[in-house]
């Protein structure tokens, strides 16, 4: 079931579109679910489909098309590391290696305590700060060095508000 908050959010979103184009709100609806639960389960997609009135498969198509929707639990803090060209040239491989060693996980995995998840991402459009990652798709952290990463991770572990809403 979609929470009251999500339903209210979807309702607000639906007002932006004509009554016969309700499926326009699907991307926002998926985002609301992800913000609340951290990821989007197939049941949530089915709920969104029923709420908006569109085929379940169509919701699934959208959810799987966009990389920023998480289709499995990716930890409390999902770190999405850009691996596109500018970041590659600026040493993102060392950044990744550092993260993997520090967290003890590979790409697409989460730490045993469920705190951190690591995934690969596409260009975030801020190449001036390469190499970089985002925290939960919300907060951008650039010009990453070993120390800076350690500092961010320590902050998040301590319950910092890194990327939380």
């Amino acid at each position, binding site marked *: 079931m979609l929470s009251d908050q999500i339903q209210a959010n979807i309702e607000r979103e639906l007002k932006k579109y004509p009554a016969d184009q309700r499926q326009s709100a699907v991307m926002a609806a998926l985002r609301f679910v992800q913000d609340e639960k951290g990821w989007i389960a*197939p049941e949530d*997609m*089915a709920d969104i489909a029923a709420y908006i009135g569109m*085929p*379940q*498969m*169509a919701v*699934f*198509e959208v959810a*799987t*098309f*966009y*990389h920023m929707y998480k289709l499995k639990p990716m930890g409390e803090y999902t770190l999405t590391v850009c691996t596109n060209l500018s970041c590659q040239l600026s040493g993102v491989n060392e950044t990744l290696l550092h993260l993997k060693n520090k967290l003890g996980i590979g790409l697409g995995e989460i730490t045993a305590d469920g705190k951190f998840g690591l995934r690969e991402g596409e260009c975030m459009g801020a190449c001036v700060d390469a190499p970089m990652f985002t925290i939960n798709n919300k907060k951008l952290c650039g010009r990453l060095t070993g120390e800076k990463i350690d500092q961010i991770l320590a902050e998040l572990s301590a319950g910092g508000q890194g990327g939380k809403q």
Partner: protein
Amino acid sequence: MINIEIDGKRIETENGTTVIEAAHKAGISIPHFCYHKKLSIAANCRMCLVQVEKAPKPLPACATPVTEGMKVFTASEQAVKAQKGVMEFLLVNHPLDCPICDQGGECMLQDMSVGYGGGASRYHEEKRTVLSKDIGPLVSAEEMSRCINCTRCVRFGAEIAGQMEMGQAFRGEHAEIMTFVSGTVNSELSGNMIDLCPVGALTSKPFRYKARSWELSRRRSISAHDSLGTSLAVQTKNNHVLRVLPIENEDINECWLSDKDRFAYEGLNSAERLTKPMIKQDGKWQEVEWQVALEYAANGLRHIANGAGAEQIGALATANSTLEELYLLQKLMRGIGSDNVDFRLRQSDFSADDKQQGTPWLGMPIADISRLDSVLIVGSFLRKDHPLLAARIRQAVKKGAQANIIHSVDDDLLMKVANKTIVAPDALVAALSQVAQALDAEKNGKAQTASAGAVAIAKSLSCGGCVAVLLGNFAQQHPQAAQLQALAQQIAALSNGKFGFIGEAANSVGGYLAHATPGTKGLNAASMLATPRKAYVLLNVEAELDTANPQQAIAAMQSADLVIAMSAYKHHATSYADVLLPIAPFTETSGTFVSTEGRVQSFKGAVKPLGEARPAWKVLRVLGNLLKISGFDQDTSEAVRDEALKGVDVAAKLSNTISAIDTNAVSAAGGLQRVSDVPIYATDAVVRRSAPLQATVDAATPQAWLHSEELKKLGVQVGATVKVSQGQGSVSIAAAADDKLPRGVVRVAAGHAATAALGAMFGTITVERA
């Protein structure tokens, strides 16, 4: 009209058409994969790239509208280069498994590759693999690596079948065609995706690895499983039917085929086939020679006719028997001296019989349904009973037609329904007369007194355009069918529309033309069973599955002295019959079906009859000879047909007109009422034995569906077993909730072994906790 030029050929075409449509119309072929004339434009395969004068790049012909003076080149250097390039890209990830691919020999990709591709690939890296999927018992998605992502199957589902069960998930190189959370494809039209798939990604599961396409011979035939008269290609090898495909017929089935027509053939060679005549002697069944069985049957009939009287003999046939079979059956009965012959086995109200002169039919050509502006569909499980007609109405609704429904269940028709009135079966007549009343008020400027729902339907029907009132199977089987017919007639007259019956089976019209109905002295199907006869001749009938009241039918069969069952299968008749005569199903005999639009279509047998089975018309002819009845010397089924239709102007015979009938009669029913559908894969003997169809969701064991309030009243949980009883019989089935049902009704399917112990398809029924 605008003028364009394709490959130097001047073409005049309508404004708004695309280049590919204009080219095809002019007989110029443009290679394509994703384009399909019945589907929306996707333009994602890029195979149809052509050069257009003044355009800097090649353009996709399927998505480029024609403009005045346009010059198109389909084989210029630029076009050929583009086609070659696209072909090479399409083959990058396509496996080279043609030798073991079911599509081999009838594959668009193979053909296009030969026609437009290069001889060798420059790609040497690893190809991508896409995991196989299990999407149900009919369509195989075993080799999805072959998929070229044209999305034809997706668009077919969303646009024609009305439900988007397949979709393209993920993106770019990871894109794959799949269902939501490994679900199955449950559409009753799903098999068309196999035809649409231009490669071997979606193939027929039952046909898988059975034969190569070029080994098959192809025979034209006509569908025996619904009343549409769909054109079929029956493909055979070594005297076995291995596959059934549609033949394009824009006026009937367009280019589609329902799963029922496509996969029913799997029931033809079921282990239950009766292949030798059998006689019951001292309670034991024995296989005998034809001569012995026929003489036994003829002597039995003669004995009863001479003793108890010919009126003690009754003949029942299913409405999917051929015109020839029905004609000879009634001729045989009348030759013996009995007028008791009927083919309307699920009908319960015969009071229209002496009030209508003509043969009930659709009331219009099937093709006209596409042009309707407003339609009222009364008592029809439309999607399941008439899948392709439902698809046609769905397209009409998409173009702006209004669909109005009056029914006792509210199944999802997968189309926009403008108005609907869902009432218990005993309120159906009242609901219809409310609409008539509202229309009358609307037309004559009187004050509206009818219910709001009826007024809304009346408003929709009085739109002034093309209007039709269609009566479905449920309305025809209804105990007040004649009243419904009279009201439909009234409504059609008030809205200047047409009205008609969506025939239940392949020969629902043909049965009337063959006179397989009782005359004034005879008994109809219901009375023949209600007042048991001493002898019955059954043609294709499974008494407990094909009749309106199985309890009564079985009791009548069991009390009879002689039951001659002509059947393609060894079925429950072994418990009540005395003679079993093996007859040929429609693929093994020539014959004629008259479709619901009155189209007389003859077909030839596709294969020889199995074992010693013989075409029923031949069996009936020999029976006629043995009984020394004159006029049984036809050599061919064509001769029988010509005799049956001699001097008959079919078009003139078709008429739904019914003379005045009292429509005020109300039948007060107490307690719960039964609503019964005949599930889509339980309609006839062949379909019931098709293993793949029986494995579908639609063939699930019947449940007792009630409104959840009714369930609460009974104190029954969803899923719990309940005892459902009618008359002497009861069955234990699972309870299920459907809050779209009206209160006071239980929906229990008929035509299924699990509910065959119950009584009439309509009327009171009790449900208790088991």
